[in-house]
């Protein structure tokens, strides 16, 4: 029997009789999810059986996938440590916006970031102009280092936020005690900070490693060639260039094995990552109040801000030039993407809510919802393609499949946010609602939806932005008529129409951020305390 802090026995919803909310929507959602994930996996595995043993190029793709993920994780985390420390101990104007910016890459469409990185580090980019002016040789962004650069761009902010949370979990009193004992910065590092880092760093590195394993859009745009192909990209190429379904299936099984092996430990660590509430506290650090350390922290923060902001500024700058003459397909693709994004959002929230209600009584349901994190979109896409192909033209289902897969991919995040809040609501108000006879629709309408509104808004914003910017499964399915905005940008880039691609990139950036903002705002507006 668990007890609350005030010594009261904890009240628990009765499992068997008089459930205030029905279980069938959750069961239905669970079955749907299983069918959507396990069906394609089964199809892929079955088809791979006839696809033969992996060839040398497949093993090379596996090696490259692991190598770039390891490098991306190590570099992101290594750079994030000093940056997080600087943010943890310095108060300066713009700190709040900078921390918000650190959360932005999560909803930033990959293709937009790639456009920005190309504008800075690419052939005709700012960096090469600078090198040329200095009389130095040009640098090349394509290949392993380009892939890793893009992954660091995305994951350095994530790592910084995770490590910053670790720093802020150290009680302020410890630093005060360290100051009163006259500890030097080195001693503080050894005694207070290193033990925290030892706990936080492996988790952060593991999560980034797992995320980078499923890298598709980055490898597609900045990698390529036999020396820089990830498994996901190889799946796409097997489809797109060779239409070799057997080989795609073999690669998909390899990717599946890899991701499942990495996801299990990453999920365990991932439980600790929040979305950064309470990162606005600054700890007073007496031992660090020296001019030299001050300058060092300022330089670090400036460098990171530069690294994150320059590509985004380049997207806006170049996009403004290209926005004027965007072809009609871009606007059509934008409308298509909005539709896909909204459909994915509605489906994701419905699934999350149904599963969360069921998970109140059957906690293991949560694991089902988290499956989406452990499978790669291209593997699911391959499987769905294999299932659909004999019956219908997959291209006709491209948009529906994209919405479906995006809903499943965003589901773990939505569930992670909705379920704890739903538990709180049921713990504090469930008994009153039950005693008043509020069941089913009445309970949903008058208790649960209003209380969950802020998390529902945030989850919807996240899902909408992720789906808006997704460039994954759509690339497998779409024909020339059907394109989402990210795919349209990719096609413009492929045709070397970089001005138009930049304009479309700006449009995509604005739409993604606007969707997130609108949903999140809508959830918080008028929300009762």
């Amino acid at each position, binding site marked *: 029997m668990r007890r609350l802090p005030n010594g009261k*026995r904890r009240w628990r919803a009765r499992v068997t009789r008089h459930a205030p909310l029905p279980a069938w929507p959750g069961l239905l959602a669970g079955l749907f999810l299983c069918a959507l994930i396990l069906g394609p996996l089964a199809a892929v595995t079955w088809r791979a059986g006839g696809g033969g043993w992996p060839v040398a190029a497949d093993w090379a793709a596996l090696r490259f996938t692991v190598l770039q993920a390891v490098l991306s994780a190590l570099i992101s985390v290594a750079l994030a440590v000093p940056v997080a420390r600087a943010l943890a101990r310095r108060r300066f104007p713009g700190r709040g916006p900078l921390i918000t910016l650190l959360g932005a890459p999560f909803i930033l469409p990959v293709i937009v970031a790639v456009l920005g990185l190309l504008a800075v580090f690419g052939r005709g980019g700012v960096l090469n102009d600078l090198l040329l002016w200095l009389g130095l040789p040009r640098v090349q962004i394509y290949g392993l280092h380009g892939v890793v650069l893009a992954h660091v761009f995305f994951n350095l902010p994530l790592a910084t936020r995770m490590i910053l949370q670790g720093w802020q979990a150290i009680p302020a009193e410890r630093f005060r005690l360290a100051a009163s004992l006259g500890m030097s910065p080195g001693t503080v590092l050894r005694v207070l900070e290193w033990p925290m880092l030892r706990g936080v760093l492996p988790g952060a590195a593991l999560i980034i490693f797992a995320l980078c394993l499923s890298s598709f859009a980055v490898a597609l745009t900045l990698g390529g060639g036999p020396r820089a192909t990830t498994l996901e990209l190889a799946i796409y190429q097997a489809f797109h260039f060779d239409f070799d379904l057997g080989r795609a299936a073999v690669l998909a099984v390899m990717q599946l094995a890899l991701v499942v092996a990495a996801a299990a430990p990453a999920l365990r660590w991932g439980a600790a990552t929040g979305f950064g509430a309470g990162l606005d506290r600054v700890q007073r650090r007496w031992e660090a109040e020296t001019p030299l350390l001050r300058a060092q922290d300022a330089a670090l923060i400036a460098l990171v801000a530069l690294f994150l902001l320059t590509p985004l500024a380049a997207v806006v700058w170049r996009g403004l030039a290209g926005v004027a003459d965007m072809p009609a397909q871009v606007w059509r693709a934008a409308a298509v993407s909005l539709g896909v994004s909204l459909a994915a959002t509605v489906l994701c929230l419905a699934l999350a809510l149904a599963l969360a209600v069921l998970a109140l009584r059957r906690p293991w349901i949560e694991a089902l919802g988290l499956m989406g994190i452990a499978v790669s979109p291209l593997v699911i896409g391959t499987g769905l393609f294999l299932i659909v192909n004999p019956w219908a033209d997959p291209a006709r289902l491209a948009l529906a499949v994209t919405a479906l897969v995006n809903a499943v991919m965003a589901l773990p995040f939505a569930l992670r946010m909705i379920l704890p809040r739903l538990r709180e609501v049921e713990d504090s108000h469930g008994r009153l609602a039950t*005693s008043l006879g509020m069941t089913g629709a009445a309970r949903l309408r*008058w208790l649960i939806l209003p209380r969950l509104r802020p998390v529902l808004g945030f989850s919807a914003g996240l899902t909408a932005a992720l789906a808006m910017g997704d460039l994954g499964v759509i690339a497998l399915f779409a024909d020339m008529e059907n394109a989402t905005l990210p795919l349209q940008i990719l096609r413009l880039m492929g045709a070397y129409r970089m001005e138009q691609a930049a304009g479309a990139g700006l449009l995509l950036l604005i739409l993604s951020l606007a969707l997130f903002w609108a949903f999140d705002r809508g959830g918080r507006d008028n929300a009762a305390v």
Partner: protein
Amino acid sequence: MLRFEDVQITQGDFTLRADLSVDPGARVAVIGPSGAGKSTLLNAVAGFLDIAAGRISWDGGDITATPPAARPVAMLFQDNNLFPHLTVAQNIGLGLRPDLRLSTDQRVLVDGALDRVGLGALGDRRPGQLSGGQQGRAALARVLIQRKPIVLLDEPFAALGPALKTEMLDLVAELASETGATLLMVSHDPADARRICPQTILVDEGRAAPPTDTAHLLDNPPPGLRAYLGN
């Protein structure tokens, strides 16, 4: 009459037994040491806890397996007795219809209940905009409108100051006598029991004793209660 027939409630390794009856319209305090099972007893009546053995009946009808909302019971908890996102009038209206589809007549009833507890003009406010005492009144207005024959109070006013708490208890007593409801009230303060409850159920050592005269019990406490009262 509310009857506990050889009732046994088990929560983990804790067991509470009760074999007693409460007369209709009685006002009964439930007192005893912390953790003795006072709230457990009320939660069993309200239907939030399954009982392991025995039966609970009201007016001769077995309510042991009746769902909470269908029991002849209105309950106020220690906290969260109002939904913070709904207006006071909506909170009270839930006592009539859990889906809030109120008819014109029912709206009149809600207004009447608001007036009765002295919150006439505050129906459109949210609970967060009310004082602690006003929140207590709003919750009591809902209990009033529910018209249930049994009212259970699990220390809903414990967080209020002494003067406010007394005011609330007097209002509870008034409302109970107006509606003829049977009142069971958990309390930590013997003065509360003396003030509005002629009878008291003592819960101690895994047993809820039949109601006895409050003044007599408190003046001549058995050893367990004496230790708890601390005099």
